[in-house]
């Protein structure tokens, strides 16, 4: 069992190296943030220990683990999405809808 797990671990490392070395420097912050949300999968671990907890200490440890991991996974994905949304190829000259274009100040916003 340990050996199988270890093989999976090592191969995943190599896949990670391959995939991530192709990410451009421009996206390194969102990349790290995305990787951050992926390690939030430790939430699954939190759920498993909550399932086997049957005393106060167990419940407290499970609660903290689940809360930490949930913060990690939710916050990580939301902030990654927020950052990636800002990366634009070109800024539209007039961001407002065509109807506003008639207004004299329409261009000032750009």
């Amino acid at each position, binding site marked *: 069992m340990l050996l199988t797990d270890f093989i999976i671990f090592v191969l995943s*490392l190599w896949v990670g190296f391959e995939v991530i070395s192709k990410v451009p420097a421009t996206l390194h912050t969102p990349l790290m943030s995305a990787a951050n949300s992926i390690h939030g999968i430790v939430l699954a671990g939190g759920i*498993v220990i909550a399932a086997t907890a049957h005393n106060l200490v167990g419940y407290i440890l499970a609660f903290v683990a689940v809360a930490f991991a949930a913060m990690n996974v939710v916050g990580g994905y939301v902030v990654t999405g927020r950052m990636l949304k800002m990366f634009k190829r070109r800024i539209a000259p007039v961001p407002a809808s065509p109807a506003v274009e008639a207004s004299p100040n329409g261009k000032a916003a750009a």
Partner: protein
Amino acid sequence: MSGTFNTVIQLIYVAAASCFVLGLHMMNNPATARRGNQVSVAGMVAAIVATGALVIHGGLIDATGWIVIAAGILVGGGLGLYTARTVKMTAMPQLVSIFNAVGGGAAALVAIRDFMTIGGGVGASTSVPTLLDVIIGSVTFSGSIIAAGKLQGVVTSAPVSFPGARIVNLLLAVIAVGFGAYVIASPSMVGLGVVIAAALIFGVSMVMPIGGADMPVVISLLNAFTGTAVAMAGFVINNTGLIIAGALVGASGGILTKLMADAMNRSIGNIMIGGFGSGDAIVAAVGVAGAGVQSIAADDAAIQLAYASKVIIVPGYGLAAAQAQHEVAALANLLESRGVDVSYAIHPVAGRMPGHMNVLLAEANVPYPLLKEMDEINPEFSRTDVALVIGANDVTNPAARRPGTAISGMPILDVDAAKSIIVIKRSMGHGYAGIDNELYTNPKTSMFFADAKKGLAQLTASVKTLVG
């Protein structure tokens, strides 16, 4: 029946892991990156739902367990959602550090709880990963909190060290590993407690001596640690999803650590030992500073910029610290509308974490094709009329090309190749390395002494009046 169920769960984990890999792969281009993030989210939801099903199927969980899970998700998720929505982009490194801390902490807790349940005595096959998880997770937890504190300015960003600090660190590491081995041989909660305490203190004493400008390396390294801790947690509870996801993050953090250390021409060990810019040993009195430096007024700088055909903007951390991203974008837009070819030269360590400067400029609506990496932009400086340096110092210092200086060998932006150089700077102060920047005494260089934000606003106003 149970066999089939487990097979289905395992297949869902494989699908989730595939989503993570695909999601990371799609981040190789800004155009597909958002979709990639969504693919990754889908994988995560599948993995969590599958884990829930696994727990129900196991039939062990009691009602309190469900309440604990629900409460944890509500509290943690709510907190995560709130911080992710409200965080300023300049504070991204702190947030990533906090997420590293909680991820590492959660991984350590999984191992601690598992150790308590089984009470050890199950042989090295589970115990070694358990102890590794506890140690790495605890170090990441306390280290990341200190890193976040330094970035936020709650903890001093200056390197904090004392004589014998290295010996203390070494001692802590020996205690953590030594007691870890002891606990594997004869499991005891007290022994585990010693391991946890030593690892937590080690995390603090590891990050304290590291200066603010080295943060890109530290954050990347702690990110790699968190990934590894999560993978170890996967070994502990025998969950393939955690192992794969943790390994992917470990690889990502590892690559970024290497890239950041290379960009500063320093070994990771050198950074962890710390104390780079902290010594007064570097003699500042070269005598050139002040003499041979020519200053320029806003109007003259504006003339150069307005009538240039190609301008490269070189932003550094000073730009972010002055919150001047929007001002620089406004000036660039104005120049572009006059037909000037404007691009940005981004050094890998221009911010406080890998790629930080790109995010700050993207937030200021700078189109990403204009953001150029060092290797891409360096050949272009010789064809550039004006290089506008804002808040960048050491990464533009030609002294790095010669041996024998504090920054020798560090890859730099070839700003001095431009036909004319304008540096916006508040004073003749030193960069992080504590040495004079030879760029400032270059005859082609004019210093525009101003705060980045105000100076850029002045330049924009001057260009506007100049061209009507």
